């Protein structure tokens, strides 16, 4: 475990009623990293997160947070964690402020000034003395973030944080997590929505049936593959024959008004030049890169 690792999940296994729910899961989150936890519903995301925050026991393996094992020293390990597990359910009959006081009292050293600071940070200043039952879902999410940040944790753990947020709220959250990451606070965020993860995370672990089947940085996701490039031309048949002479090993597909093939970015101008020289009119050239979604479906199915 290196100095820059904030969270380390080591060979964690969870069994419920003799059924293995989580099977030897290992991964680690670095300081200042936004780490995505991606998988279909029921894959074990929430169970894993519940084990990290101490809501569920671990059958095998261990979880280390900032160098402290949660099974050996729970209280110390939890000092470094701030979390929302699914919906941020607060005490509805208390005000937002009273809720924050409640959580602040459970950790030594949180001043009232800090409560005001996080209130300001999540933009709830005007409504903080209203009862939580009068809050919208978005406001509850913000209050959830506020309680998670009270004690300046090293890592934020958010389980499906975008549920119930409108697009503006999601964007706000994303920007906010990025700001925190730049200040050194890591985030572990789970979701089944790929498009969100693509915009939010540095790295993504894909979990399926209780196992991690792939971990990739998002740059790898878009760069390590050739793109499929579509050429729209006036004489598809002729163009196809022509390109086949030059690129014998390529798998070229003919379509109604053009053809498509997989190639590297640098090869696109060369093909265009061949076509133009032979008098074939090129109307458009565009590449269709595979989205994270396609890759995800490819991996999980």
């Amino acid at each position, binding site marked *: 475990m290196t100095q820059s690792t904030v969270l380390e999940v080591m060979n964690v296994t969870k069994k*419920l009623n003799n059924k293995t729910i989580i099977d030897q899961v290992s991964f680690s989150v670095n300081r200042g990293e936004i780490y995505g936890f991606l998988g279909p519903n029921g894959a074990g995301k929430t169970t894993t997160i*519940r084990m990290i*925050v*101490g*809501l*569920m*026991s671990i059958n095998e393996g261990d979880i280390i947070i900032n160098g402290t094992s949660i099974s050996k020293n*729970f*209280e*110390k*390990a*939890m*000092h470094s*964690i701030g*979390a*929302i*597990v*699914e*919906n*941020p*359910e*607060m*005490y*509805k*009959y*208390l005000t937002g402020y*009273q809720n924050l*006081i*409640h*959580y602040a*009292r*459970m*950790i030594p050293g949180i001043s009232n000034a800090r409560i005001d600071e996080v209130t300001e940070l999540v933009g709830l200043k005007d409504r903080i003395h209203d009862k939580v039952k009068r809050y919208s879902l978005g406001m509850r999410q913000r209050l*959830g973030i506020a*309680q998670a940040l009270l004690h300046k944790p090293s890592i934020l753990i958010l389980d499906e944080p975008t549920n119930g947020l409108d697009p503006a709220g999601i964007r706000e959250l994303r920007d906010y997590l990025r700001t925190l990451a730049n200040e050194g606070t890591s985030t572990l965020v789970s979701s089944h929505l790929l498009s969100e993860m693509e915009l939010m995370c540095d790295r993504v672990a894909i979990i399926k049936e209780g196992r991690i089947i792939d971990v990739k940085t998002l740059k790898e996701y878009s760069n390590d593959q050739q793109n499929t490039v579509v050429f729209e031309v006036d004489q598809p048949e002729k163009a196809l024959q022509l390109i086949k002479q030059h690129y014998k090993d390529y798998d070229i597909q003919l379509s109604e008004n053009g053809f498509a093939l997989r190639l590297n970015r640098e090869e696109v101008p060369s093909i265009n030049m061949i076509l133009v020289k032979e008098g074939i009119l090129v109307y458009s050239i565009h590449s269709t890169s595979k989205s994270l979604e396609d890759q995800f479906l490819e991996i999980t199915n």
Partner: protein
Amino acid sequence: MLNLVRNENMKIYKKVQTWVMIGLLVIIQLLMALVIRDTEFTWIHFAEISSYLTSIITIYAIVLASSIVASEFSNGTIKLLLIRPVNRSKILTSKYIAILLYIAFLMLLNIVSSIIIGFLFFEKSTANSEISFISVLQNYGFTSIELIMTITFSFMISSIFRSNVLAIILSFMIHFFSYIVVDILVLKDYELGKYFLYSNTDLRQYLNGNEPVFEGMSLGFSIGVLVVYFVLFIFISQYVFKKRDVSV
């Protein structure tokens, strides 16, 4: 620990039902005073009669004790409560202390308001009163022992069953049927009945001239039985709460 108890107190006193209960006790006493005014009653008589209102406090204690843990599960708030750097056993203990404090407060309120209302509506001199104030307090003392056992039992039910409603209903049923069970056991002269919790909760059975419900029971025996049950209830509550996987 102090902060945890303050938290639990805040959650109790910010609920409307808490203040309804406090108001209810005082209003019932006032109504009683208005009905029995113009009698030969002294304030001690009134305090004595008011001490029977503890049965209302018992009912409320059951509701509160059976919901204080289960409601956190029902409302989902348990998740944000247990991810703090505080061991679960401390959280559970703080809840238990908070209930005892609140019920002690209700008992005290009942005593104090019965004395004040007694002085306002009834004879202040105690010359022709055949009961002493000490015996009234004694009555509260005995009731408190029953109350603590009832609270501890309901509290255990609360930490075993995550459903608020189920915990309350179960606690009530067991509480009320238990007294019937005692009667049946006595009727059948079933000797093991003396180890039954509710055969021992009322220590008034050892007061001068009273007979214990079963032969061979003594004050020491009953206290022993109560302590064993108490430790068992607390142990089960803590064990279940500590081991529980939170999946709400």
